[in-house]
């Protein structure tokens, strides 16, 4: 369950009217919707929330969730209860690159804690925080299905496996150089799923 649920956020009507899918994103959304019977459009919610999160700054604001509700013709609370349940949806703004280090069993057995401490020291933030320049956020994650290549971390859609301190150094450099989340857009996510 997400630990990012917040108290009542002030709803910004101006921001809400600006929140609209691009043409490309809307095409993707329509493709997703077409996979289900016409009266079961709510089934599109989880995939559409991924599109919305990628489209609107890497998180789901109240305005974004309200917009998704209007697209799928469901109530805003139905969107919020899903967004607050699943761990991949961010309910507050995150850094451009969200580093999620797996911390369960096999990863722990292979040094995940040391990786976390190393990144905390290198970026000068603690788990759950974002760097001042807005570039990196650090989270810990539960088993990501990469136990044989532990320790590892996920950033966006990319899995970074068999981590060493050197690999962490180089992936941080690469992300800094790219300057953005090298994942959803690179996989052309918006135009497929």
């Amino acid at each position, binding site marked *: *369950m997400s630990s990012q649920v917040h108290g009542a956020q002030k709803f910004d009507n101006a921001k809400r009217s600006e929140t609209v899918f691009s043409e490309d994103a809307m095409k993707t959304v329509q493709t997703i919707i077409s*996979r289900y*019977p016409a009266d*079961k459009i*709510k*089934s*599109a*919610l*989880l*995939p559409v*929330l*991924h599109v919305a999160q990628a489209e609107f700054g890497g998180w789901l604001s109240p305005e974004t969730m309200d917009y998704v509700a209007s697209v*799928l013709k*469901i109530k805003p609370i*139905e969107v919020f*209860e*899903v967004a607050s*349940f*699943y*761990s*991949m*949806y961010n309910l507050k703004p995150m850094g451009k690159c969200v580093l999620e280090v797996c*911390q*369960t*069993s*096999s990863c*722990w*057995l*292979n*040094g995940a804690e*040391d*990786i976390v401490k190393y990144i905390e020291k290198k970026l000068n933030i603690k788990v759950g925080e974002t760097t001042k320049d807005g570039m990196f956020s650090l989270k810990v*994650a*539960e*088993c*990501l*299905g*990469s*136990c*044989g*290549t*532990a*320790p590892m971390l*996920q950033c966006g*859609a*990319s*899995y970074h496996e068999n*981590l*060493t*301190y*050197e*690999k962490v150094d180089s992936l941080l450099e690469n992300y800094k150089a790219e300057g953005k989340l090298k*994942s*959803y857009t690179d*996989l052309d*996510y918006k135009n*497929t*799923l």
Partner: protein
Amino acid sequence: MGRKLLIHNDNMPNIHTLEVYRANGGYASVEKALKTMQPDQVTDEVKKSGLRGRGGAGFPTGMKWGFLAKPEGVNRYLVCNADESEPGTFKDRYLMEKIPHALIEGMITSSYALGAKTSYIYIRGEYFYVARIVEAAIAEAYAAGWLGKNILGTDFSHDCYVQVGGGAYICGEETALLESLEGKRGNPRIKPPFPAVAGLWGCPTVVNNVETIAAVVPIINMGGEEYAKIGIGKSTGTKLISASGHINKPGVYEIELGITVEEFIYSEEYCGGIRNGKKLKAIVAGGSSVPILPAALALTTAKGEPRLMTYESLADGGFLTGTMLGSGGFIAMDEDTSIVKNLFTFSRFYHHESCGQCSPCREGTGWMEKILQKFLNGTANESDVDLLWDIQSKIEGKTICPLGEAAAWPVAAAIRHFKHEFIEIAQKKKFVDISHYDRLNKLVKA
């Protein structure tokens, strides 16, 4: 060399493409089923094969298919459970990434048997890049006519779609998966009714694991009886094992059910033994939910027989001296591992993943994590061991879904087999992390 039926071609270049897959015998089971068999005959072969659910529960697949209700005019669905989230398990990811067409072929053949016009592959959200690979393979299949209308010129039409999840271990439970597929929170449903009667959108549905569906391909190709010749007793065929931890060669291995645990851990064909010349201390044989076993019981049953990689042998002795094959998420721990701390990572996991519906699970997982944290802080008392035991014993059988049990069993097993570690920490009022992850050596060298 053990026979392989699922990932024998995993290292063939471009085996993820339709062209190469087809050139190496791919989609033959679809041809055989659609052109020469009735749907019921396909189900019969699966029954004969003795195939059991490969996701973790090990329920006979043919029997599950047989339960599917078939009322007139009501859609039936096949849903593939690709929510792989059981700690220690990564075999479905491997199969989907390397040979996605194996899954798609299995979906088509299985859907034909079940009379499902539409199927969904529910992939955990974190496996996003894997979903992309499966999507591309589905597109290839449509383009070549393996999906869509009138496949191979027959009456059978079929649509297959990928659905990504949002990050929730509980959605690996079949009814929670269906809730998620319906666009809701992943709260498991009370059973009965079972999905076979009322599943996706209330329609008769079969939910099967990725590997289970992929196994339908060789079963139809070689025949159920031939498949059943592999393995021992009620553990027929091959199984994908995800091996990790302190072994020399972590990775996904396809084994014939029936090899010994000792061979699996020490032979060069599989895990290649324990790293750095250390001794084996314990194993978790089938994903975090199954009881941990100390090395001696891992290799030999309480009866003194060699422990085999089968459902029956691993479960020999019940939870007193045995464990389960489960998902095949095989984690091996060496002599420098703190069992208490490993248990803590499991308990933290279950607490995080509890959906929150049932009080024994929602509160119980939280309490177990907090008490184990006391052990790691060195502030636990000996009575906390009894408290842990008491809490876990009150969860089993009192929840809507098995996540409660899955959280309780590891706690019970750790106390049952390694109580001295807990007591020592409580007596010394100090936790010294003896775990040695080869920190400097492994992490510094690329």
